């Protein structure tokens, strides 16, 4: 079994700028209903919650090697469980591509410090399957 890892850092301020510039269009193109509902439930924390979720989507793309596949950001969803722990749920083409490449469950960790939000994603894959990208 192989473990693939992806990491991404996102500036909270930059995400807030995108929200100010593009408003709902930015929100709706990048985030799912559930992600928006959780992030905006605490307005003061919305920027960092959205930044962390964007980082998790990018970290997932890196871990799974999806950069060349044509994947919408909403196809990679960060779902917060009752315990407070987050998990990554894949939809549509992202889910199909990951399954084709033999990836199993994903594990995600989010973190914040000052203006920066970070995410790390681990993905396990069976040895016999080929990775999606030569990355």
């Amino acid at each position, binding site marked *: 079994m192989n473990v693939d890892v992806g990491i991404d850092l996102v500036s909270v301020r*930059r995400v807030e700028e*995108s929200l100010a510039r593009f408003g709902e269009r*930015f929100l709706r*193109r990048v985030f799912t209903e559930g992600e928006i509902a959780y992030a905006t439930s605490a307005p003061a924390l919305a920027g960092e919650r959205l930044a962390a979720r964007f980082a998790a989507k*990018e970290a997932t793309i890196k871990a799974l090697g999806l*950069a*060349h596949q*044509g994947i919408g950001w909403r*196809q990679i969803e960060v779902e917060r469980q009752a315990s407070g722990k987050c998990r990554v749920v894949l939809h549509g083409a992202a889910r199909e591509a990951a399954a084709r490449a033999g990836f199993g469950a994903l594990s995600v960790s989010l973190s914040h410090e000052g203006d920066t939000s970070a995410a790390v994603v681990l993905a396990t894959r069976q040895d016999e399957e080929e990775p999606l990208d030569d990355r």
Partner: protein
Amino acid sequence: MIDKIRKILKDHGRLSKDALTLEATSDLYQAGMTSHASVNVMLALEGEFEVEFPDHMLKRSVFESIEAIRGAMQELTQKA
């Protein structure tokens, strides 16, 4: 079209080089465009050209150079 693309990259791409004079085939990610900046570029392109990128076009190769973006915009504006 290419001038509008360059202007959008200058305003939203956060490149370390001048988007107005950058080679059309230069790699924009190598020039400093982050994945988040590429979202802003996409949204600005959609607003400027009144198109919408379908999910299957949301990949690195579509946004990797001015020339690649021009090709994508030509494809989308012909469909529009």
